[in-house]
């Protein structure tokens, strides 16, 4: 589904990704861990198409297409979803209106008929239940005045609405209390099928108790320096990163 080969990216003069190789297949869950500043969020942003970063080398294909040639919105419409670490507030734009436009654009891109109003409302109701999102929030402005937990639930709600092929969740667990973490993580698990894939970026093993990864990768200084199965996350939780990064210090 996603194939990243020798990806290099920089912001200004500073190179942040220095040769990433990663392959994600349908039905898989990948976790990306690593110390602060290792390039995890940058990887997510570059895959989503954030123009702040310049890709200087490497290739990325998504469903066989060259992802790097596509605009942010076309990547989204094709089925790439990025759950933001800091979801943005959009005053004056209601969640319902925002989602209506997003779903309509996606369907248009895929050559599907637009949803009728009643079909759309049914979809909203059904999907807000996935993350126990208060249905009142959908009539409020996007993320405005939402608590930290509500913002993250709202990300997963949008993911449910858009039903992506590949979801990249950037520290979706940060700032969540235990209950919200369980709801958000359970929501992600409910949405997982053999047809789609999830990449979770996280600092903590506890998220992976719910979202069980097939692979765990450690990112350090812009490279994946180690990969393993879910037991790697447990080991990292106990022992930290030192045993891995000692070999890579400059």
């Amino acid at each position, binding site marked *: 589904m996603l194939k990243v080969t020798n990806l290099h990216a920089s912001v200004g003069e500073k190179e942040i990704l220095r040769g990433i190789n990663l392959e994600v297949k349908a039905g898989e869950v990948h976790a990306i861990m690593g110390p602060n500043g290792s390039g995890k969020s940058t990887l997510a942003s570059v895959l989503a198409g954030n123009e702040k970063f310049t890709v200087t080398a490497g290739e990325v294909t998504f469903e066989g297409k060259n992802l790097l040639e596509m605009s942010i*919105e076309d990547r*989204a419409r094709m089925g790439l979803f990025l759950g933001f670490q800091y979801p943005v507030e959009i005053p004056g734009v209601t969640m319902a209106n925002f989602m209506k436009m997003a779903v309509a654009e996606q369907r248009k891109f895929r050559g599907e008929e637009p949803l009728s109003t009643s079909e759309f409302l049914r979809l909203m109701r059904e999907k807000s239940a996935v993350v126990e999102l208060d249905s009142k929030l959908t009539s409020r402005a996007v993320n405005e005045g939402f608590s930290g937990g509500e913002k993250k639930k709202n990300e997963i709600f949008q993911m449910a609405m858009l039903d992506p092929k590949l979801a990249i969740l950037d520290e979706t667990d940060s700032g969540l209390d235990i209950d919200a973490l369980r709801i958000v993580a359970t929501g992600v698990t409910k949405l997982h099928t053999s047809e789609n894939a999830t990449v979770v970026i996280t600092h903590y093993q506890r998220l992976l108790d719910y979202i069980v990864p097939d692979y765990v990768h450690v990112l350090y200084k812009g490279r994946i320096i180690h990969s393993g199965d879910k037991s790697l996350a447990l080991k990292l939780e106990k022992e930290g990163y030192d045993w891995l990064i000692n070999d890579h210090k400059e």
Partner: protein
Amino acid sequence: MTVNELIQSGALQTFEGGTITADAVSGGTLVSVNPTTLKVRIAEGVAANLLLLHTKPMQTLAEVELAEGSSLSMGDVYLAGSFADVKVSQCASSECRMVVVQLGDANVTYDVALNGKEAASSLHGVFVGADSEHVVFDLTTRHNVSDCRSESLVKGVVSDRAAGEFRGLVYVAQDAQRTDARQTSRNVEIGNAAHIITKPQLEIYADDVKCSHGATVGQIDDEAILYMRQRGLSEPMARRLLLEGFVGDVVSRCEAGGELCAALAAEVESKLEKL
């Protein structure tokens, strides 16, 4: 339907100007199209709805008087470049709610005088300038007596080489104790050549007052655009939605009736599309 189509359809009862006294509670909206001079008096205890529509370039002088205990919902809409003076004077316990929409080269001066105790004024305005338009929104609110309230929120959007000017003065006379006045000016500049000047001013001679003012000038929020594009919206679509959201809380205060408010919202949307 656009505002012009609505006027031509004959569905509205309109008048051009002159002197009008609203002396009974009227259900509908009094609509004045392109008035040159207009005097409106809202009689004691009466609640009325007034809408001034300016659809072609012209000069207007409008004077509105609210008698004791009356209330007025007033819309003032400019679809073309115009010069206008709008003077509102309010007697005790009257309430005036104004919604102003300026699309184009309008240069409008509002003078709201609170002359009787416990009078209340609210003004919500939006101006949008494109190309090389120059929009001026000048608002003076005079608290001449004690115990009055005023609130204003004016939002401006300019793009290309357009300029927008907001001048807002809140004047509080020496005897106007317990005045409660709030004034806010919020603006968005699109592009490097667009220009906003905002000048909020307070002139206070009383000592027991609550007054606040604030002004902001910002650019389009790139993070919000990125967020919306990540969900599949194109950049122009995201920008328009953001701007509609920005002015939406002003436009949604329209009280002129369903058809008119919808036409008005459509005018604002089509103007925002041009930015």
